[in-house]
């Protein structure tokens, strides 16, 4: 498997690795994928309750280099975005930025799902 330079760069120096406290009111958590498929992504966002802007993000990913790179990239992209802007990120943008081959497109889909799940989780926490 030949990886693009950008995938290798994210794999070697993953951004924003780690975890926030799931129970924190300002944190939204998305966990997608399944061990059986060889990919699990956990993506967390920290939202400013006043402005509704994502101020910070963390990820942990079990999966191939492209899955790690996709989630690492997404944590960079969502920072400074509103929840709706973050949820509007498309997997095709991720795949394009990382030059993912067709067989790895599912990694970018998973990263899109992860950010959507994190946004949903945050919104659920604040609807009641």
């Amino acid at each position, binding site marked *: *498997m030949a*990886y693009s330079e950008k995938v*290798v760069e994210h*794999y070697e120096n*993953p951004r924003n*690795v780690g*975890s926030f406290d799931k129970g924190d009111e300002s944190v939204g958590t998305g*966990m*997608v*994928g*399944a*061990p*059986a*498929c*060889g*990919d*699990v*992504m*956990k993506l967390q966002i920290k939202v400013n309750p006043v402005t509704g802007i994502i101020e910070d993000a963390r990820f*942990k*990913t*079990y*999966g*191939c*280099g492209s*899955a*790690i790179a996709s989630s690492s990239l997404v944590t960079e992209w969502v920072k400074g975005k509103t929840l709706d802007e973050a949820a509007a990120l498309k997997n095709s943008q991720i795949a394009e930025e990382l030059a993912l081959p067709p*067989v790895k497109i*599912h990694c970018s*889909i*998973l990263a899109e*799902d992860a950010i959507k799940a994190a946004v949903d989780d945050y919104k659920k926490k604040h609807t009641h």
Partner: protein
Amino acid sequence: MRELERQGFEVTYLDVQEDGLLDFDVLTAAIRPDTILISVMFVNNEIGVIQDIAGIGAMCREKGIFFHVDAAQATGKVEIDLKTLPVDLMSLASHKTYGPKGIGALYVRRKPRVRLEAQMHGGGHERGMRSGTLPTHQCVGMGEAFRLARLEMSQDNAKARALHDRLINGLKDVEQVFLNGHATQRVAQNLNMSFNFVEGESLIMGIKGLAVSSGSACTSASLEPSYVLRALGRSDELAHSSLRMTIGRWTTEEEIDYAIATIRQNVAKLRDLSPLWEMFQDGVDIASIQWTAH
């Protein structure tokens, strides 16, 4: 086998035990009055376990069933004496024993005689079994490679065993590491381990100086976990987390030490990245979670 099925034969595929070895009783129970052939791999290509060919062969003789053995991974690693081994047909490959690629051989016993149907038709060379001009240079290369393998086998094996033990000792105290396949009934040249909660492809990407594989070369592009490890009853995570390491004739102690260091370092790095490892550390049972398959 699939081709025989296409022609209308019925084939029974047997699972192996957790250690990768064939259960003799399961094999015996699967034999039918109309069974004509049993085919077994001498040494498994992914996990290196050695099947009891002499035992299975003796049983086949007793029942009058032809016995085919795929010995591609066995030559130069285990003793094969076809004068005493009750095997009727044996497949051999040159390139697995340091010979040239592109040639192999099929041993066919004369007594009891096995009647075969040719796969290649034409001029009727090789008693009609393989039409076409033989590639002399490849035949000679394979013969010479096998001659050397026979001469050097005991020395090769002793050296590989020492390196195998060195590698296993250097890795076995890593937390949540599992040896795939029987611990002793295996060739020394293969070591297959699962590093739980680390995905195999990402590990291979990290250990750049090492030429290893996750699963077999035949399927590593398919994103499917190794079917061999699934057959051992390994969980999906463990099957996705496997590394097949092989030791060759020219592998050195320094290379083994380098492998140990780089694997340990990358497993630790990837576990820091792994949500499954985090859950394991927090005492969460991963099997209890409802995952959304994709």
